[in-house]
């Protein structure tokens, strides 16, 4: 028969072990969760690359509007992050009520078929009133507008001058108010924007090998 003292000692020992295990587990948990969140947030807030931006309307097959600003978004049809950018574009178009001519160009490599551009993202863009959706074979137009990251948006004035260049989401795939959206709205409304450039968050429009080291969006 174990004495009460022994039982009490064993109980205390088990309790101490449990506290130690819990404390250790808690520390490990905090560290793991903190690092994981940090990695996740860091990934979401790391902008993509931007190519050489034209100062004025480049030579392109896209028709520029002469009586109003022209907005062009370069996008990857499969980029999940661009869903937020398309959403923000819809907000901008709704807010500006036709005072801007807008295009969304989905990059389509040569060897891709119909499945490439048959995504819900393309259909979402097509559904935005006043937005023309075009395919950009091999990303030729993207390169002309200096875009290397999906969701990159440029705004040209009626006079062909570049007014704005950058993303219209606050972070990767993150909907909501952001600096790019505010700048475009201000520029179309003939106001002075707080900034004319913004970071672009999205997938890379082309392989790194195709665009060089600066063409990749960060993972």
């Amino acid at each position, binding site marked *: 028969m174990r004495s009460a003292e022994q039982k009490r000692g064993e109980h205390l020992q088990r309790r101490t072990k*449990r506290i130690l295990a*819990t404390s250790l*587990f*808690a520390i490990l*948990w905090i560290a*793991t*969760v903190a690092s*994981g*969140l940090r*990695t*996740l*947030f*860091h*990934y*979401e*807030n790391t902008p993509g690359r931007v190519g050489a931006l034209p100062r004025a309307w480049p030579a392109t097959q896209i028709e520029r509007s002469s009586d109003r600003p022209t907005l062009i978004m370069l996008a*990857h049809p*499969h*980029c*999940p*992050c661009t*869903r*937020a950018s398309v959403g923000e574009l819809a907000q901008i178009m709704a807010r500006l009520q036709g005072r801007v001519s807008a295009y969304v160009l989905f*990059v389509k*490599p040569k*060897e*891709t078929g119909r499945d490439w551009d048959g995504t819900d993202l393309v259909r979402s863009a097509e559904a935005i009133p006043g937005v023309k959706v075009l395919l950009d074979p091999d990303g030729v137009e993207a390169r002309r507008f200096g875009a290397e990251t*999906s969701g990159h948006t440029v705004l040209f004035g009626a006079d062909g001058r570049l007014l704005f260049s950058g993303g219209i*989401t*606050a*972070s990767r*795939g*993150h*909907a*909501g*108010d*952001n*600096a790019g*959206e*505010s700048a475009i709205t201000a520029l179309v409304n003939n106001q002075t924007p707080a900034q004319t450039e913004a*970071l672009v968050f999205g*997938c*890379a*429009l*082309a*392989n*790194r090998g*195709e665009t060089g080291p600066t063409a*990749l*969006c960060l*993972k």
Partner: protein
Amino acid sequence: MFEVSLGASGVNYSVERANELFEQHRQEIYRATDRLFARLMFFQWIAGILIAFLVAPLTWEGQSSQVHLHIWGAIFLGGAISIFPIWLTRISPGATINRYVIAVAQTLMSALLIALTGGRIETHFHVFGSLVILSFYRDWRVLIPATVVVALDHFLRGIYWPYSVYGVLTASPLRSLEHAGWVIFEDVFLVISCLRSIREMRSIATRTAALEASEQGFRQIFEDAPIGMAVVGLDESFNQVNTTLCQMVGYTESELMQCTTVDITFEDDIPQGKQNAEELLTGGPRSSVERRYIRKDGEVLWITRTACLMRDVDGHPRNFLIMVEDISERKQAEKALCESKRELEAAHHANQLIMDNSQDVICSVDEWGRFISVSAACEQLWGYTPAELVGRPYVELVCPEDRALTNQVAEVLRMDGKISDFVNRYTRKDGTLVDVLWSASWSEADKIMFCVAHDVTDRARIEKELREAKEEADRANHAKSEFLSRMSHELRTPLNAILGFGQLLERQNPTEAQRTRVNHIINAGRHLLNLINEVLDISRVETGNLQLSLEPVCVTEALEEALSLMRPLAAERGIELLTPAPLEPADYVMADRQRLQQVLLNLLTNAVKYTPVAGKVTVSSSTIGSGPIRIMVSDTGAGIPSEKLARLFTPFDRLGAEQSDVEGTGLGLALCQRLIHAMHGTIGVDSAVGSGSRFWVELARAESPFERVALEKHNGAYSQNGSEVCSRTILYVEDNLSNLTLIEQMLSDQSHIKLITAMQGKLGIELARRHSPDLILLDLHLPDLAGWEVLSRLQIQEATREIPVVIISADATSRQIKRLMAAGASAYLTKPLDMQEFFRVINETLAPRLAA
């Protein structure tokens, strides 16, 4: 509001129990909410993975793609966030740390989901939802870490990833306030909700504790009830039983719970039980019925079963509550009562028969004297029927002259409880009087007089006649005795002259012829004198005038004295007087010494006279144990025929001896018989013709005066503690019993004086010699010796010479006084005694001896 039970201990118990219940409830909530969050965490983890797969399964680089970081984040980060709180809830559900870890983890899960859904505004509701779910803990402090995590998330993101929070580099202060406001807004109401829940939980706990206490009380009553109690289902099965019921029916609780009431009910009583149950179910009132149960050992048990219906809150019948009381003893008592009642009725019937057939009136009367019941014989006694008498006071029937006495006797009856042989007169219905003899007893408990009455009219008349006849005879007898007494006295006077002158003539030298004539005159005179004396003695006995002095008399002395007197006569007639064995000197009888001597002489004279020449007369005495002493005188005479024995003690009946030459008056034995009876003894004779006769006298044994004095001396010489006390002994020699009693009473309060008495002079001398008293009181007129002679003998003997002698005598002549003082008396007191003088003389006489 719940009211605590009375008493300090009751209050403490309820509060403690309420706190205990509250803590239990709270712990249950904590554990349940822990489990809820554990499941929620797991669900959120899986949901996050699915969302990641749906929203951003791949990340693209041109045409090439790879798994999106959200997928890995959802799997690993979501898992990491969930695993710790799930583990905690597994190992210690309800622990305090769990709630805070879960609060943090849940908020982190919100952040993860918001990230996985691309910051959709809808996903932000997860934060508010999480706060609400956290409030399930009803612990407002849990909201603090959740709110802190939300704040830290915004703060840290604002620092490190400012765009991720508000989308702009410089966040608007108003937006921050708005975000914080909504969270705090919700927190405030959730805190209020938590506090209200806590109050409600406390209230519930308090009510539950009170309910438990109340239920405990009822359970205690149920368990400790002195009657059997049970909760029975509608199907008659036992749901709950108390100990008393189990003991009553002999089953254990578990056994009884397997039974139904039908199982233990006596078969004949089952239908009634079912009917009672149906009546209750149909709204009948509470029923209480007597029935029989069968104990486990098979014994039949009589019980009273009271049942009522228990309903639920909706009023639907739920159970029966039955209360069972063991009435077996009562049933047995009732049975015994019935038996007793039946026996009583039978006895009453028998009594009535006895009363109705009794020749005596048997009746009972209440405390107010009214007849309660009367036997049929009353009609014969009083002329009234029982119906006419019942309720009527019996006094009304009593003859008016006897009513006062009757009422007095009735009072005596009530005090003593019983009377018998009371006779009073009643007036019959026809007006005639009837004498009634009553025996009655009074019952104080019932206040009833039980009487038996008997018609004694004839008996009373006869008794009255007999009484009158006896009184007449007594008067005649008394007159006869008086006549004899007077006549004897009148005869003595001339007889005195006849005997006197006859003796004078005898002394004057008469001639032989004259001497013969003179002897005839003297003998005839003496015979006549004896006859007169005996007649006088009988007369005195019968008239009650004979004075006897009963005292212890030595049988040996009395017999020797009588024998010495009879020897000359016996020798003259050639009769041998014998005493076959030495007489026992210690035998004393209570008798008058002179009269005993007279009886013995009479018997011896008869024996000598009626025994032929050369015959034998034997005198003896015998005792039987401590009983009376028998003195026997036997002769060898002709004997007495048995038919004549009855006349032997009849006066003047000589049984034919008057025809013989034996002289006699026929009064001797009659006188002996009366004298012996006067001395409380018996006298008788055994005789057979040809064998002689044996006369015997039996007298009560008396204690020897010597032994009594010795015993008194021994007892009186020592006090109770054994020390010798100053004690003086006085010997009083006096033949008069009244005088003896007087002196005894005069000295009775003198505790230091012991009185010895003697009624004869010789006995007095012997007592003086043996006991050497300190003082002798001496009467001068003693039956055996004169007082002066006693004094003289005392003076002669050395042992008694120094003992002072005080003479007490009625003779107050100076000559007598001088004579006795000269003879050696210490003092002379005359009768009647002067008490003061008596004690003075006593004290003065004893003083020198005391000093010595």
